[in-house]
């Protein structure tokens, strides 16, 4: 049973697409309801992953079957998860029903196509997270592009065609170069006895530093575009602004994580020498990204664009955390990925709510909404705090761990600069919140706004719950990802022979203390019962 869970989960939405084809396209209610059902089922199927997960560094729920066998190539259908992909998979299945619910009113044309695209997207995302075969991963990685392209291009805003094509081509260039690197890696591996594309084969390879450099560059470029890192981020604000709400939510919550996930899973452990060489460069770009995106976010007129730029800044923190290459940094980075998924996803939903009501997203069109929409104001505030990283919310834990970890690493001075990003994020978020929610309710169009409906509250509740749960009690998350991350750290450092002389500063905190002594979350423990690890309502 355990072997098939992942495949069942991954391809359930695909089955949904086939059934969807036979539902009459004018029966919007049924189309939406059915898609919701499929995504909820997928979520339910994924729950045993979290409950049945054994806390260690190994891949679990593995299914490994021969798939393609031709000439020198062996590709396997090889899926499995470890503590890293577990949470990203859960995040995906958790966010999908929310994304579907958010489209209830927003999308009223070509509903069938939209729902099919959402489900296909889910297949691609889940597949990419669970693949343990490089070739399989690449297939899912590319498959993701197609539905997203249509989601932005068909149901997007005014400038949607430009945004969709830009999104597609940016991602395509990066991933094709990665493909060349994958093939080259395979041939390199073949001379060392590798017989198929399974990821595990490639971790042990002792590649020479020059090869590593080139391959790392190819992988890193593909992932950097997806993250996105400065200066490759320009597709993101366009894509986010033009995409419909559900598209933005998925893009922010899951698709961007593909990039950072790629670093943790592939680029870092595969090429340790190159990691050492490029850490300063990547940290520099990440820091520039944080500061630059925060400054740009500050001057945005459009709420959605502001949130989009805040994404770039947040993912800069993730990158710094990952490349600090120590336990706290990586845990913080991973946690921050999940946090960003929840809180930025929630922010895009909120932007969607007011856009549906007013058909504008300009900050100047609003003001004083809190009087008219008290529930909305409360929710918006909680999410804003989470995005800023206020203690008690999830954002705090991740950001704190990232900064702590990177401060202890060779990236100390980068951390100092990056920390100002925390302040900047408070500035732009709170300022935006103030201008939208407070002040005089002087625009007559705003005076008739209705507060959130039951459906909208229902969408937000799970996210609010997660914001607090992960903020107050992150232990279940960190515990499960820690062993896998330790392994990544070990793999991403230069191999033992030379490792002793490099990076002695990294391990200030003794290893053993980490799992229980999370410095970030002691205050939360009494508040929440140690409930189900997945923590979903």
């Amino acid at each position, binding site marked *: 049973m355990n072997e098939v869970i992942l495949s069942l989960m991954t391809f359930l939405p695909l089955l949904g697409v086939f059934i969807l084809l036979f539902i009459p396209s004018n029966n919007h209610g049924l189309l939406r309801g059915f898609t919701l059902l499929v995504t909820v089922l997928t979520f339910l199927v994924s729950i045993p992953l979290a409950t049945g997960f054994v806390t260690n560094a190994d891949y679990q729920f593995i299914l490994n079957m021969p798939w393609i066998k031709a000439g020198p190539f062996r590709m396997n259908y090889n899926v499995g998860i470890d503590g890293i992909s577990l949470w990203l998979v859960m995040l995906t299945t958790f966010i999908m029903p929310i994304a579907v619910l958010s489209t209830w009113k927003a999308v009223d044309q070509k509903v069938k196509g939209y729902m099919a695209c959402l489900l296909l997207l889910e297949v691609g995302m889940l597949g990419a997270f669970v693949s343990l075969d490089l070739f399989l991963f690449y297939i899912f990685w590319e498959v993701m592009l197609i539905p997203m392209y249509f989601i932005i*291009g068909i149901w997007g805003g005014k400038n949607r065609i430009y945004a969709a094509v830009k999104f597609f081509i940016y991602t395509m260039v990066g991933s094709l170069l990665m493909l060349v690197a994958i093939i080259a890696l395979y041939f390199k591996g073949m001379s060392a006895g590798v017989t198929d594309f399974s990821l595990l084969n490639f971790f042990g390879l002792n590649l020479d530093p020059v090869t590593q450099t080139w391959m790392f560059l190819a992988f890193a470029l593909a992932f950097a575009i997806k993250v996105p890192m400065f200066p490759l981020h320009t597709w993101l604000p366009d894509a986010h602004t033009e995409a419909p709400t559900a598209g933005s939510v998925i893009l922010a919550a899951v698709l961007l994580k593909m990039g950072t996930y790629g670093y943790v899973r592939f680029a870092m452990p595969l090429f340790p020498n190159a990691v050492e060489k490029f850490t300063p460069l990547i940290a520099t770009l990440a820091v520039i990204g944080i500061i630059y995106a925060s400054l740009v976010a500050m001057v945005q007129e459009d709420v959605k664009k502001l949130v989009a730029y805040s994404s770039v800044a947040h993912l800069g923190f993730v990158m710094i955390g990952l490349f600090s290459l120590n336990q706290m940094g990586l845990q913080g980075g991973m946690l921050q990925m999940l946090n960003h998924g929840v809180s930025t996803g929630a922010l895009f939903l909120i932007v969607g709510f007011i856009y549906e009501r007013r058909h504008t997203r300009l900050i100047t069109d609003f003001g004083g909404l809190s009087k008219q929409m008290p529930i909305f104001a409360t929710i918006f505030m909680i999410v804003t705090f989470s995005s800023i990283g206020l203690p008690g919310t999830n954002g705090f834990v991740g950001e704190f761990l990232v900064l702590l970890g990177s401060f202890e690493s060779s990236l100390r001075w980068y951390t100092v600069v990056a920390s100002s990003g925390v302040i900047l994020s408070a500035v732009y978020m709170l300022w935006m919140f103030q201008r939208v929610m407070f002040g005089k309710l002087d625009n007559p169009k705003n005076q008739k706004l209705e507060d959130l409906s039951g459906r909208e509250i229902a969408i937000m509740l799970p996210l609010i719950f997660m914001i607090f749960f992960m903020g107050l009690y992150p232990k279940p998350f960190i515990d499960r990802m820690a062993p896998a991350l330790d392994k990544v750290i070990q793999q991403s450092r230069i191999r033992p022979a030379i490792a002793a002389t490099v990076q002695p500063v990294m391990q200030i905190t003794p290893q053993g203390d980490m799992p229980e002594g999370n410095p970030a979350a002691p205050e939360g423990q009494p508040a929440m019962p140690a409930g189900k690890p997945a923590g979903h309502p």
Partner: protein
Amino acid sequence: MDTIAIPAINLAVIAPEVVLSVVAMALLLINVFVKGEQKGYLGYLSIAGILGTLFTLIPAWGSSVEGFSGTVIQDNFAIFFKVIFLISAVMSILITDKYLEREGCNQGEIYPLILFATVGMMLMASGTDLMTIFLGLEVLSVSLYILAGFNRSNIKSNEAGLKYFLLGAFSTGFLLYGMALTYGATGTTKIAKIATYISINGVSSSNMMLVAGMLLMATGFAFKIAAAPFHMWTPDVYEGAPTPMTAFMSVGPKAAGFAAFLRVFLVAFAAFKPEWSNLLWILAVLTMTIGNITALYQQNIKRMLAYSSIAHAGYILVGFTAGNAVGTAGILFYMLSYAFMNIGAFAIIILVGKKGEENNNVSDYAGFGYKHPLLGIAMCIFLFSLAGIPPAAGFIGKFYLFSGAIQAGYIWLAIIGVLNSAASVYYYLRVMVFMYFKDPVEDFAWVKLTPAFVICLLIAVIGVLVPGVLPGLFLELAQKAVLM
């Protein structure tokens, strides 16, 4: 001097060619008795003939039989290519009938001509003697000149026929001159014996006649496969020719050109490989880049696909440059999948088009995806496959071609290749932008969707998706068909 001996006749080797020729000649006769509006039945007869040919062809798989004193061979390589030719012929015939009716040039001769062209292609794939290859090429070319200009009343079709004839004759001249010089240098036209001659006498640059012969033959083949800088004829011919024939020309004859090109260079000139792979490297880069960049600017979808087919020849040349088993298998697999995706795309172009070759601009596709959802999805599948995006066959093909290049150490060539591939995404996406992202401007007055079209599209969709998702079997066959 040998005494003149009657060569051992082994009809089994050329059985497929014989069957198809007989069917074609019979159709020419039957055509006289068939009334104008019923010419379409000739198409079904010719498909029956092709299926019969397939039955004589398939059992030969796995064996390698020579015939007629080693001038033809029936090996896996030839059989794989012949299957590609036959598939492209069947698919083109399926979409021909209604098109001719709409354009008002419903002449029954088109079917025998397609069959003769196919016989020519099959001879090219089988030929192990420069003369056989040349004969096949001539049979193919002469039929194609007529097919390109088949729509007599359309001035563009006339232009296409004439242009193709002039440039084709010119390039045939190059090829023949190259063959003559090679014969002069080595004293034989048999491919295997040329290889023996070179291996005995060594590769010496002093043998200028042989080198010149090789270069001239490369030029001739480059014309036939429309590699840059010898591609100038392609867009005009593809645009002007009747669309089903464009579909046919862009697949079958190109594959045949590659078949002969591969056999001559991988076998006869194997010893010159370091030299010719440098040459092909340049050809590949030029062909991909020129094809893709020019395609970016095309408004007419037939022209766009013409330039895209130039670019695809470039990708195939990447595998050819590698010259190893993976690269060659990649060529075979790619040609097969290219047949499905390209003819599929052309089938849709025919459906959207109007009488007199109108409605062929990309902007005419506005809203197409909503008017005809299923056809829209089919077109998307073909375009994504052409762009090389998984899980379509086009991706696996490109993967294999570029893998070959990487394995042979041509990393930069592979990188240039994938960057080209990324650029090509733009113009394929542009069609989809119009299909889905723009509102329809006018109603489509289009050809009725006949069963023949449906079958053709089904074959194409299956042919793109099945090898895309489960490529193992097809790749294994391609691996078995390589010339080494």
